């Protein structure tokens, strides 16, 4: 267990560093994914099976989407031309090192509370009950938030809305597709 933890910890930190060292967007994204997968696997070590697997599931999909966007907008996405991808290198190094040290110090300086009670037999089950019971309000708020997110991203991302598709009075039966408009 301890060995596995240390391996995963080293992998996640090393892959995290690699994100900034490699000069290909694809490599950077997948280094980040490797780092996050190591974190997900670490969750498995403390028997949070559902959360660990969920992290793997979500992060693979999300990193792929991130890769798609990074490559769409970043110059030289494959790193085929020698080129420095980091701006203000020195300051960035200092800031990130300082934040890392701060966070690690936080881990050691916090007085963690002693465990109270026994861990539940099935944490996933417990999670479900929490979502349905005391955290219900949270979930509903999140539902509205997600709806708002969907609407706002669609508004921001599509430059041709329903009036471009169905005509000014929404009279067209079959919408025009991109490239079809007159």
């Amino acid at each position: 267990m301890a060995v596995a933890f240390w391996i995963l910890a080293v992998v996640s930190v090393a892959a995290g560093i690699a994100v900034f060292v490699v000069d290909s967007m694809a490599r950077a994204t997948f280094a980040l994914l490797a780092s996050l997968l190591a974190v997900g696997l670490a969750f498995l070590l403390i028997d949070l099976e559902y959360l660990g697997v969920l992290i793997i599931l979500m992060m693979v999909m999300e990193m792929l989407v991130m890769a798609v966007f990074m490559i769409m907008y970043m110059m030289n996405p494959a790193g085929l031309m020698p080129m420095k991808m980091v701006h203000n290198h020195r300051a960035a190094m200092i800031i990130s090192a300082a934040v890392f040290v701060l966070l690690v110090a936080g881990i050691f300086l916090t007085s963690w509370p002693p465990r109270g009670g026994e861990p539940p037999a099935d944490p996933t089950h417990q999670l479900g009950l929490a979502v349905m019971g005391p955290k219900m309000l949270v979930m509903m708020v999140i539902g509205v938030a997600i709806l708002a997110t969907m609407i706002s991203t669609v508004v921001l991302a599509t430059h041709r809305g329903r009036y471009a598709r169905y005509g000014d009075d929404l009279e067209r039966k079959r919408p025009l597709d991109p490239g079809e408009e007159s």
Partner: protein
Amino acid sequence: MVVTGWLLRRAARHPRPFLVSAADGTRARLRCEAEIARRRWRPALSPAEAGLLVVCGAPGDELSEAVRTIWDGLPSPRARADLPGDASHDLVAHALDRAVARLADGAAPGRPHGGPDPGDLPMADRGPDRDGLSLDRLHVPLGPVLPDWPSGLVVETVLQGDVIQEATVRWLEDGEPFWAEPWDRAAAGRPVTRGEAGRRRAAAHLDGLGRLLSVAGWPAAARSARTVRDRLLADAPREALTAPYERLARQVRRSGTLRWMLRGVGPAGDGDALARLEARLTATRAAIGSIADEAPLDEDRPAGNLLNPDLLVGAELATARLMVASLDPGPAVAHA
């Protein structure tokens, strides 16, 4: 090594051929495709997948250059067969046999190393885009050497993502004289029956249909079309052709997925890809119906479709391929 030899011999029984046809190589290509189907080999889609390059006919300068590029991309063990445009069945079979023997030997012919230094390619440049963004543009020529692509056609495209921003069409050669042969002979004053022309016409339609179905990702139906085509060219009687053709036409017409994927694709004067498919099926049926007609051929060759590059602009790559396959275009130069 013993193991290597054994594996090479096993592999040589299942070669993956990659066919290239020049304008005058149609007859050899058709014979070769029929022979490959008879031997139950599965054709390759790209040079990396292939082990056997078959060149049909005598390619011109530009096509020769393209063939050399393709040949350079084939990994060893590889073999090459060059067939003359009028290659007989025996010659085709013999050439394939020899190629298989070379594959089984595994003799990796030494190849000149180097070529242009790969590292000095530039990165893509930016350009304005349909969606109002300014992103990289790639120059991607389609043809002359591409599976299920009309012989001699080159479409130079500029891609942004997978959408064509610009397209120019050119033809390396004057189309495939093989399909026009009965009309050309009739025009030269030699006796040609309507049945003979109908047979050739039906085979041409089925050849194009095979390409369309293959591009549409339906290899099984494409194979059925090519089987009927090969039987037509092997002079099978009408009775032996109508049943398999009707089965194919029924299967194609009944496929809701195919209709869904072709509807609205490449609208031209004669409707969309789906309408063209329907018209082609009807025309093929009529042509097969006429193959017993002994009357002398007295009509002009039906005009082929032209490819308007504007049609391809704004289309996604898969749609563009469907458009080209459904038009089955020929060069603008008319055959006398």
